[in-house]
């Protein structure tokens, strides 16, 4: 039983450590950090052969600005996303689940490089995950 109770304790500590008082925006490192990892994400997205073909006709700088606003707002930061909604902006692109997941992995990599803690990354991904319904078409 001892390892079980040790595990239970570890689970309990693991679940209770992220300070719920601090907002996700702060845990992501604030606007400067979000801007840096978003720019890095867009760089990765435009060069990774798994996703690059979907962004051939996209203006990179504009996309990065919109994404910073979107991630900042989603994490509770003082920004407002002014782009079109996810469904409209991805219509008829025929985005696959594999392409969507590749972008998630690029975001994880960009956040890793920025030093965003793993559990804060997951909290952001939890907010973004339901967008898959509007983005993935096949």
């Amino acid at each position, binding site marked *: 039983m001892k390892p079980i109770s040790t595990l239970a304790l570890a689970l309990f500590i*693991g679940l209770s450590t992220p300070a719920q008082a601090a907002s996700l925006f702060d845990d992501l490192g604030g606007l400067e950090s979000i801007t840096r990892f978003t720019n890095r994400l867009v760089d990765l997205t435009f060069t990774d052969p798994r996703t690059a073909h979907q962004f051939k006709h996209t203006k990179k700088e504009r996309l990065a600005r919109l994404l910073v606003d979107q991630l900042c707002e989603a994490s509770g930061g003082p920004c407002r996303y002014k782009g079109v909604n996810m469904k409209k902006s991805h219509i008829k692109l025929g985005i*696959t689940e594999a392409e969507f997941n590749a972008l*998630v992995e690029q975001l994880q990599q960009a956040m890793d490089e920025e030093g965003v803690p793993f559990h804060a990354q997951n909290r952001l991904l939890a907010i973004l995950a339901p967008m898959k319904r509007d983005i993935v078409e096949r």
Partner: protein
Amino acid sequence: MRMMAISLTHDQVGLGMGNITNFNMGRTVRRALSVALAFLAVPTIGHADDSPPPENLFGSGKILATPGVIQVEGAGGSGLSTWAMISGYGTNRQVGGSAHHTFVTTNDFTLNATGVTIGLFDRLELSFTRQWFDTGSAGGRLGLGEGFKFNQDIVGAKVRLFGDAVYAQDTWLPQVSLGAQYKKADKGATVRAVGAADDDDIDLYLTASKILLDKSLVLSGAARLTRANQFGLLGFGGPNGGRSLQFEGSAAYLLSRHFVLGADYRTKPDNLAFAEEDDAMAAYVVWLPSKHITVTAAYTDLGKIALQGRQRGFYLSLQLGF
């Protein structure tokens, strides 16, 4: 509620339990054919600059760790429990698969299990596993002969019914799958001699799983209709009963990108008269250095087995796949 389920799970849900699988199976077959045709049609030397690269059928498009590992009977899950996720890293337009070897050693026994599991289009999972249960010196004490082995083959199938464990983060609705495991014990005469009614049978299970990403937690629970004695190694049914509904569940915590900590609990029938059978549990660490290599190390307590007292020990599983 039905409308909600449909809108929540995007296009992957049909209109009612009965025709969900039919509808999607048909689509899966069509998809398989079209992917196969696309492969034939893809020119082998270069493609126009503007056209998308060909899709990779074996592209391992799922996110790391999200399909779980292979459990002891060969299904996608964790150590002792089945999960609703379809095993392998294939997405809805890909195929994934892996081979595993699992080694369990307890006070008196060792169990080896080897098998392959494939996931088709994130919809259907097929598996084959062989288990060797070595009684060691306990075999002598039981009058079977030292080193006597109880073996079994397990053929498994699992179909995803509805839900999305990974992406439906705005709802509590889990991913739900239905599975079956056909098990055939190889020592028919011996398992009958210890009281089992049969040497083969089918376990049916309904499993529901959810990744709570904002808590980095995976929860899973399954109901299993079974009469397997010690997972089927000691045959099926017996003087104390036949099929009953049993439970298996897991909680796993995503420690980091490459490490998962978790625990399983599984109840089992107690059908044989000669020896009492207990519930089993395991606490494990999974290391996922990449999508192609997964190592599970566990401490396990399988309860009393064949009059030899409580069996506690270690569980190690290596999985290679895509």
